[in-house]
């Protein structure tokens, strides 16, 4: 728990420092328009960052020594694998859209996802993947005229 609080606090501080640095950059390099804008793009970001930094410090001080008691629900190892596989499938899917195009990538994604979600029957997985992908393609690409990347292969 202590580690979680530490990571959360550090993350808030990192975000606020990033905001502060960017704010300072914009305060120094003010352009002429900001003459009529006392806060400007920089100071606004700095104020928000100061607020965030204060909260980060308060979070660390209030919870590091005595972390809040959180009821941890034990997670089955298989479920963790399922979660990681779902994230991996999404990453692969988004990559594949740019390489093989929307339709093919979607068929592959559904195929993977239904297997990850433990739909056991192979024919059902194949049918569901093809039907759903076809439906999405018709609805979004054909009917709604959305333009997806055609993919490197089919260019």
């Amino acid at each position, binding site marked *: 728990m202590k580690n979680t609080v530490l990571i959360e606090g550090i993350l808030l501080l990192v975000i606020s420092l990033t905001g502060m640095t960017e704010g300072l950059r914009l305060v120094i390099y003010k352009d002429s328009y900001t003459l009529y804008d006392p806060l400007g793009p920089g100071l606004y970001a700095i104020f*928000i960052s100061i607020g965030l930094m204060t909260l980060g410090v308060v979070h660390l001080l209030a919870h590091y020594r005595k972390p809040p008691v959180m009821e941890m629900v034990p997670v089955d190892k298989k479920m963790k694998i399922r979660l990681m596989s779902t994230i991996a499938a999404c990453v692969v899917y988004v990559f594949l859209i740019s390489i093989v195009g929307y339709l093919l990538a979607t068929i592959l994604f559904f195929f993977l996802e239904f297997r990850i979600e433990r*739909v056991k029957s192979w024919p059902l997985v194949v049918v569901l993947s093809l039907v759903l992908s076809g439906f999405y393609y018709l609805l979004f690409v054909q009917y709604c005229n959305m333009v997806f990347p055609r993919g490197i292969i089919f260019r």
Partner: protein
Amino acid sequence: MDLIQGIINSLSLSNLLYCFIGCSLGTLVGVLPGLGPAATLSILLPITMHLDPTGSIIMLAGLAYGAQYGGSTTSILVNIPGEAASVATCWDGFPMTKQGRGGEALWIAAVGSFIAGTLGVIALSFIGPGIAKHALKFGPPEYFGIFVLSLTLLISLSGASLIKGLGAGLVGILLTSIGVDPVTGVTRFGFGVTGMMRGLDLVTLAIGIYGVAEILVSAEAGIAKIYEGKLGKMMPRWKEMKKGLLASLRATGLGFPLGLLPGLSPIISSFLAYDLEKKVSKYPEKFGTGVIEGVAGSEAANNATAQAGFIPLMCLGIPTNPVNAIILGALMLYGLKPGPAFVVQNKEFFWTVVGSMYIGNAMLLILNLPLVGLWARVSVIPYKYLAPTILGICVVGAYSSRNAMFDVWVALGAGVVGYLMRKKNWPQAPLLMGFILGDMVEISLRQSLSMGGPLIFFNRPITIAFFISAVILAILSVKFLKRIPKQILEDKSDL
């Protein structure tokens, strides 16, 4: 006259269809545990971009108030709240099901919701336009006052930890500043990446934080259990019905004014109404064992609050809960700017949407009474079929708003962040709320300062009134939050 014209407009075939789809989807997501109205609205938002604005908002609003009806079904039948505001309904609803009175509980929940919803729309019809008359008195300092008042919502959305809620809210505000500065045109937080220079998109972020995160949490948690109970007879006896209807009226009276204030979301009003019913009851010790007033009170209150939320949303541009924040986002995407002048400038649109709410509430009564058996069966659709389908829509949704693969990556990243937030009890709603309001806060603040420096806020009575209201509301929100069991606040951080 405007209202009658609005009702006539909303009776057109296309508007009726949008209203029906919205109400049905709302009931569906209310019934399905794990898929909340905010997540569904986020997922549907890009799809509605292809529809006409009136139809889309009718559909999204139907979904928002429909979810309050549907949420009671699983609370009563399987003790799983379909959405956060139905937690209090479980306490007496499920014991009623165990006693074979599930049908009666569902009847009073639907009728109570109908009473609250309809009274809410009637009030919206008469109070809303009155606020619009003051439109010309609003300049940037007044708008800044409104946004400060809206930001008090961050407190009640914080759940168990105020620090976490405010932290998430500030991160949301900081995320808005990515991209081109709205006043000077300078690029902030671009880091040389084209996508970053364009800024982050609301739809993308909402899809990630709610939609994708919801699926990831469900993937880890497993599938919802199956309903096997018996409904029993639907209509309660007159004595029980009278108790339930009176409780509904009391809860409407309590929930409606709370819905006008930012920060007092349906879940808070449902708890307060439950508390009230317990206090006025002659048998408070029986609450929790299947008392009809417990179900009627909490359900009517959450509906009244949800419906009342449309008044500040449409007439002041203040979203009072995450669902309304997303509807505000949708209105802005259509180029409509809710605020004091909104009703005057968009008369036909406003009254058509209000008209559709009368029809929507009647539709929901029909959907929830005779079709309750169907919804009970829908709640057993295994997640293994729903999850891939929803993920597919999330990807399309994230891409569609700007046709950029960068946005899909952002949605995916936001999904992982949303999942981690849920796991570590960080509320997601304040982050999105901060993101929606951040831009407007910045513009109104900087415009006000350029008009007359910091002192300008103290020369404007309306702004001062908003500031004072914000302080009072902040105190009230903290006070009310203490009355909700901590366990529920941690479990349901998405108030």
